[in-house]
């Protein structure tokens, strides 16, 4: 069998290989939320600019993505900000930042009207394994944040269609 060209389908059937074992271990991970404290927020220049010197509190924001993405093109994302809220402390916006995407500002969700359940689900694109950060802005100017880490692997076989 000829050696495959680099970057193309790595065909192997030997589970003894360590990198395969690590792959197998990764694949055994259930769909778990991957949180990180705000102190561990990754350095993202676009986010630093957005924060403008303010420091978000690591509380009440739950950012949920799979630990291991099926495909980096479409990764389910859920961000929830726990209440209770008052009109003065309601969430006005949630911003999503990417550590490794070419465009670090992934999305901004705005809540001009009061709602007691602040939860947004969408599907994101991830260029590579990385941390994602959600920053919630409250009406009184307070900031809350949470990070999540996602592993993105390349496909087993390339698709040229």
């Amino acid at each position, binding site marked *: 069998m000829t050696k495959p060209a680099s970057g193309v389908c790595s065909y192997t059937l030997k589970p003894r290989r360590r990198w395969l074992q690590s792959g197998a271990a990764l694949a055994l991970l259930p769909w778990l939320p991957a949180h990180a404290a705000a102190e561990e927020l990754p350095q993202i220049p676009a986010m630093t600019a957005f924060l403008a010197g303010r420091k978000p509190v690591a509380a009440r924001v739950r950012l949920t993505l799979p630990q291991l993405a099926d495909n980096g093109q*479409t990764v389910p994302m859920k961000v929830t900000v726990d209440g209770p809220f008052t009109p003065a402390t309601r969430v006005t916006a949630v911003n999503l930042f990417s550590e490794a995407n070419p465009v670090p500002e992934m999305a901004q969700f705005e809540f001009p009207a009061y709602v007691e359940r602040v939860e947004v689900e969408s599907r994101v694109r991830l260029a590579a394994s990385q941390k994602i950060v959600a920053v919630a802005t409250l009406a009184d100017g307070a900031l809350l944040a949470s990070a999540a880490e996602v592993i993105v692997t390349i496909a087993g076989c390339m698709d040229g269609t």
Partner: protein
Amino acid sequence: MTSSTALRAILVGVLSAHAVIACAQERSLPLPGLRSGITFAGADVRAMQSDDVSNPGFLWVEGGEKRWNTAAGATGKSCASCHGDGRSSMRGVATRYPRYDHAVKGVEDLDARINRCRTDKQGAQPWARESEELLSISAYVSYQSRGLPLAVSIDGPAREAFERGRVFYHARHGQMNLSCSQCHDQNWGKRLLVENLSQGHGNAFPAYRLEWQSLGSLQRRIRACLFGIRAEMPAPGAPELTDIELYLAWRAQGLSIEAPGVRR
């Protein structure tokens, strides 16, 4: 009997026995052991496929339903003009495709049959493979068979195409010199990088493939596999692809249609 006659008789006997065994359609994957690709998929893919609201494939199903009821071509007929409500008239249809049709003296997959309806019955231009229009009708029609078991016929005139498909499936192809069988019959369940090799069934197609960011046909998926092993891809709509589709459908006999499926 002379020894040469005896020898000839033995030879004929052996060859006939071989022919009988070859025609017995032994399955490289036994029917009780069949598993849909969804059982190899990650949680995200499973969640997406099981929710009709967020399954992107339904954008095509809905588009197909509208198109089904829209007049087309020189005749100004819609699909509904002849077939009525697709939700009842198309129930079970996708389970029988690909199938042999005497009108064309050949095996057609569902997309080819849809296009033949367009040209012959509506006086319209056939749609290109993987076009949004063709995929939407294909998705709509296939969806009407969701939950029903695949049940194609390989009898009589369909046999030749089936055999060609089977030979292709078990032959080595491409720079990597791999056969479909090596991965999907002999090594399903094992890892390819971080992915689980599936049994390679087509029961979820047309499917929204995350890699494509779009709905696509089984033919596209087969071509993608061939690309992956660095083999030449037949052009979309090529007869070889229909042969393979027929073999795959027979191989997956009894598996439920999942269209519109979601796959990575």
